[in-house]
């Protein structure tokens, strides 16, 4: 079941682990904020907040992925 995980080089394992587990925590909190109306899609400010949060996640994931790729290619 975890054969694909074992076959990943260690440097990709660390990245996948961090962004999968961290991503679960991150997106669960956003989901919870939407569910509890702490974040309202009807508010322009809240929509900008959501866009910023997702941009930041993608930014760090992108930087770390490209960095790892460039070092190991």
């Amino acid at each position, binding site marked *: 079941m975890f054969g694909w995980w074992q076959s990943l080089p*260690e*440097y990709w*394992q*660390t*990245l996948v*682990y*961090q962004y999968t*587990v*961290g*991503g679960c*925590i*991150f997106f669960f*909190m*956003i989901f*919870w*904020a939407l569910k*509890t*109306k*702490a*974040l309202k899609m009807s*508010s322009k*400010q809240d929509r900008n*907040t959501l866009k*910023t*949060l997702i941009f*930041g*996640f993608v*930014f*760090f994931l992108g*930087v*770390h992925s490209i*960095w*790892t790729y460039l*070092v*190991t290619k």
Partner: protein
Amino acid sequence: MVKLHIYDYIVIFLYFSGVLASGIWFGRYTKSTKDFFLGGQRFSWWLVAVSCVATLVGSYSFLTYSELGYTSGLSSTVYYTNDWFILPIFMLGWLPIIYFSRVLSIPEYFGRRFDDKTRLAALCIIMLYLVGYIGINLHTIGKGFQGIFGDPGASVELLGFIFAKDSLILYGSAIGVGLFSIMYMHHGGQTSVIMTDLLQGFLLIGAGFLVFGLGIYHLGGFGNWLSSMPMDHKLPFPHYNTPNGFHAIGAFWSDAITASIGFYCMNQGILMRFMSVKSVRDGKKAICVVILVFMPIAAIAVSNAGWLGTALVAKGEIPADTPVSKMFVVVSYMVSSPGIFGFVIAALIAALMSTLDTLINAVSAIAVNDIWRPYISPGKDDKYYLRMARYFALSATGVGMLLVPIYNQFDLIMEGFTLVMALLTPSMVVVITLAIVWKRFTANAAFTTLVLGFAVTASSFVFPWMIEFIDHGVNLAAHESGAVAEGQYVPYVHMRAFFGTVASLVIAIVTTFLTKHSEQEETKGLTMASIDDAKRSYKGGEPSEEGTDVKLHLTLEVGEGDVAHLSTEDMEKLCAKPGDILFVADPRAWLGGLRSIQVKAGEPHDKPSVIRLSENLIDLGSLHLDKEKVTVEKLL
């Protein structure tokens, strides 16, 4: 041998004078305990963001991350680039809740959300956390000075007693810099802290990059530096679960999750910094810029001496047996010229003082608001509590100094610090998170989690096998790599935080379902599901965000009462009604809100482009009548 030049002493002297002068100068804006602790809730996002970086980067950062940079390469940046995961907890939950509920301290939040016994348990843990933080910063500045002036084995005679020279430098510098921090913090509280941290934030980032630039030049270019590193030193993450002291799994659980939630949500100093911002919107902007922009920049500033050290050792310019704890001082001394090295040392001291002043201010806030005012001496006037806050600031530094010999027992600076934080943060982090996201989370469950979670985490020091079943193979990998002898348990420097978090979470969930849940009144405005209630309570009416993007430039005139009067026309432009909260500020944006005030809108008048405030409000906001205009924004 590191030796300071006269130019270095001059630069360090100028730095001390500048910080002291600005701390005392900005202290004149402190007129009440609200100003002393919260800075009057008026600062702009950029001012809070830069000063926040100075708080995040402690003196231990330069030494510790240079150690990591030397031993592990570019992966030393991982601690400063993994905070984004917990940002929704802070930005969407904790920040609006604490800001709108106007709590002055984290234990106060616990008292309101839960009960007095939970408040007391939180108080004890947070005080230990803050004093532990003060201690580590004092210890590292001592270690830094040891690297410059130390001479292992040498002794010094003082007042008829013989002291080891290294010990004298360690304790002497910790006491000296600690006392200096108090001098300006004692005077001006949060305003002095923010304004001096602004100065120190630029200084420490600038010095870090100066060392990097000079080091690259010394090595003959960027390519020469990069090619001197082994491949695994160029990766952004350390190895998955080895070595025991620094691995990706540990960095994720102990730092990205537990320590980050702990730092942003449990650190009273950070809470006060974000309470000083003019609005929650500015607070959100500040935290995004801190994590997205300033933290990665700071990561390079604090780590690069270690990266340069690897190349300098490879070239034979630095002996391979140089202690890693001295790498920052040795490398920056080698690449700097007289005067520049003084600037670097000033930055090291700046990193200490900018963190220390925040922590000292935080301890005094908790001591006054959670101990002295409610239990020891209630009902006194504000000046009395302001005086007590200043005495507590002195005491906090004294207690932090007593921790220096304890931290000195550890070989690596980061090791001692991580062990202390891994003990104190997990149960608090779980309780804070569940308190804001889970309305069902009960007071009894919160108290049990704090006490039992702490006890279980502490017992893992005695029974480390408890951690083994969730250690992600850290123990096995350490054995296989020969890091520990067979049959000997690895101390789980990082995995203890994960264990404590899991244990506390289980305790919290089980006890919540076994105990009676709180009534609606106890959670109103204090959970994510009731942030609108918190806004109503903050404003004293129905919140309205319409028109909050508009900024007007109006002429200030003297009026009457404790509200601001605008013309009907201007009220319409702002979509404001009487009772809405306005922000009136000096139009010079670079002041960052230093001269400003939050005030409610009153009934409109009929003179366009004019705002009327009473003389008292003008004085409280340090606004100038002789200036032509003020800016006016609607906040809520």
